């Protein structure tokens, strides 16, 4: 060891006059833009929140009191409830750097199981409901097993199961719609999410909207205050590092997809509450709409960064644009245009913010 000692002494000599400062990151580019970038990196929900506020102001000017009324603002909340709930499920998946194209199909399949069993087959509604929710969980579990154990890319897995669950929808429903009145007469519990509570000033809250907020709060807690939540972020950010750190990424992924399936089943309950009927048609773009909400809400499609609150804001932004533009008398075509532009801007911003860590 004497060699080492003398060697370091020589090295110490060579360091004479060198800086004594501890190694640190360069902070020399701290201009105002850099500060904004840094702020947005720390608060991923800041942009969707700002967009929402600016949007409300613009539409309040453009469409006047028809838009900026308690009733209408609560209406937008009602209109985005289904996409909001599906968006929560989608956020969990996207945080693991995955994507779930089957969320809409899982939702409709669960609703059809609930509706057919209770109204057509005469099964007690509580049992039908549990089996419907079980269907959602099972679908999610299948996705999770294929992604985590068979190690297929999530895009491929859910592209396949989207088609499979879609076929099951047609098979089980016999392509028939169950009418709202029949459900109200036989299985009113399925429509419970449509129950309405009048707030002051004309605003109306549905049970579905409240449940959406409740699910969001629960998932927020899981993501931010539990080990499972940290594992989700870690798995999405760098699965190899997460694995080396002792996280069981396989079970984390299976857990995430199964939980997403469960949330999709809850979305089916919200869906029946909102449209009354159980229909094999409709909600066909719900999977893409949920991804839209997640992306506009500032969650990165590349995993590991984002939040549930952002997704709810993202869904509200889309709902607000559609509602506000319609009330301002703008053609439907331009509503779609605006939503598309928002997606591009959201991803551009995400990429720009990511540069701070590059």
């Amino acid at each position, binding site marked *: 060891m004497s060699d080492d000692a003398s060697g370091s002494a020589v090295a110490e000599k060579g360091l004479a006059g060198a800086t004594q400062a501890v190694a640190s990151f360069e902070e020399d580019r701290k201009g105002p833009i850099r500060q904004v970038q840094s702020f947005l990196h720390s608060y991923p929900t800041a942009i969707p929140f700002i967009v929402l506020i600016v949007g409300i102001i613009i539409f309040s000017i453009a469409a006047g009191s028809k838009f900026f009324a308690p009733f209408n603002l609560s209406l937008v909340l*009602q209109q985005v409830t289904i996409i909001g709930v599906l968006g929560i499920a989608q956020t969990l998946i996207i945080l693991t750097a995955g994507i779930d194209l089957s969320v809409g199909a899982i939702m409709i399949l669960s609703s059809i199981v609930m509706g057919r069993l209770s109204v057509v087959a005469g099964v007690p509604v509580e049992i039908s409901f549990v089996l419907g929710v079980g269907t959602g969980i099972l679908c999610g579990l299948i996705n999770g097993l294929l992604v985590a154990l068979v190690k297929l890319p999530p895009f491929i897995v859910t592209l396949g199961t989207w088609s499979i669950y879609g076929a099951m929808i047609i098979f089980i429903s016999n*392509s*028939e719609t169950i*009418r709202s009145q029949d459900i109200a007469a036989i299985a009113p519990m399925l429509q419970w999410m449509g129950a309405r509570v009048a707030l002051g000033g004309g605003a109306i809250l549905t049970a579905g909207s409240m449940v959406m907020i409740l699910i969001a709060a629960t998932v927020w807690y899981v993501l931010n205050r539990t080990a499972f939540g940290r594992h989700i972020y870690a798995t999405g950010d760098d699965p190899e590092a997460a694995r080396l750190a002792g996280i069981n990424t396989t079970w984390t992924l299976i857990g995430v997809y199964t939980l997403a399936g469960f949330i999709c089943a809850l979305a089916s309950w919200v869906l029946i509450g909102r449209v009354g009927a159980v229909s094999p*048609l*409709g909600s066909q773009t719900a999977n893409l709409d949920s991804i839209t909400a997640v992306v506009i809400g500032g969650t990165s499609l590349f995993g590991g960064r984002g939040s549930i609150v952002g997704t709810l804001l993202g869904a509200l932004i889309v709902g607000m644009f559609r509602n506000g533009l319609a009330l301002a008398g703008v053609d439907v075509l331009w509503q779609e245009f605006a939503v598309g532009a928002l997606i591009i801007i959201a991803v551009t911003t995400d990429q720009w913010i990511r540069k701070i860590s590059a």
Partner: protein
Amino acid sequence: MGKFLKIAAAGAVMLGMMCGTAAYAQEVIVGLITKTEGNPFFVKMREGAQAKADELGITLQTFAGKFDGDNDSQIAAIENLIASGAKGFAIVPSDSSAIVPTIQQARDAGLLVIVLDTPLDPIDAADATFATDNRQAGRLIGQWAAGSLGDAAANAKIAMLDLAVNQPTVDYLRDQGFMEGFGIDVKDPNKYGDEDDARICGHEMTGGAEDGGRTAMETLMQKCPDINVVYTINEPAAAGAYEALKAAGRDDGSVLIVSVDGGCPGVANVKDGVIGATSQQYPLLMASMAMEAIKKFADTGEKPAVTEGLDFFDTGAALVTDKPVAGVESIDTTKGAELCWG
């Protein structure tokens, strides 16, 4: 499609043709291509075609798009039918104009092409069209709505719940037919949205489904709180609109909802007073007539004729309502339920 897939597909088709010609030299193959599997209208159509094909002793091959508007799957279906040596086919086009070149290929290959329900653009791109007169179906509900309101029709406030932004033929035909029946100046009769009648609150898209119907109705009610007439492209959209009216406490009969299709859930909704009147059409009839026409063509080479004064064969539309209006012919819900589909 990759090169390998193309070669593989071509190989499979050739094998199929060789086996097919050897084993079933006498077989008459006919095709039925619908928009989707998920819509009861098309399910009924397929059932009607299958029953008639069995009766006539011909072989039916059915195809469908993956979603409403899926042109690619329909093109592939036509190519498959040409390859399998079919005598002809019936198609409900998802895209009325984009499918035309492929249909021309089929006709050049000697197949009889019959279009069902949604006319092509141009309509004579097919050998024949068997359809509900969608414009007439719209006119019937428009006349009924105007007749029900009486003098109040002059001050009506109308919500238009349409299908899709790209305005497929069935969409504008029903929409503009309704306006004509109601007495609105439609401007260009093959396009909606260019009218300037103050009674129209606005057009919103529903996708022809309940969820879209509800959202569209909520938005239009917010725009015009005094809406009292609702036109809907089909009965699922009408059911969704009714949910919105119910939520707003306006399900007291003060708002007239009219629709088109005549499916069994829709007719039941007319009976329950959810929908005031609907125009019923007959998918089973369309499909079975198409099978007969193709069989006849295979046997004799004779092509089907069109209805006098029209450029297509009208399979009929009847107004279903329990509140008839003088001067507008209609059937009641009991009769409608006997004839309904889905």
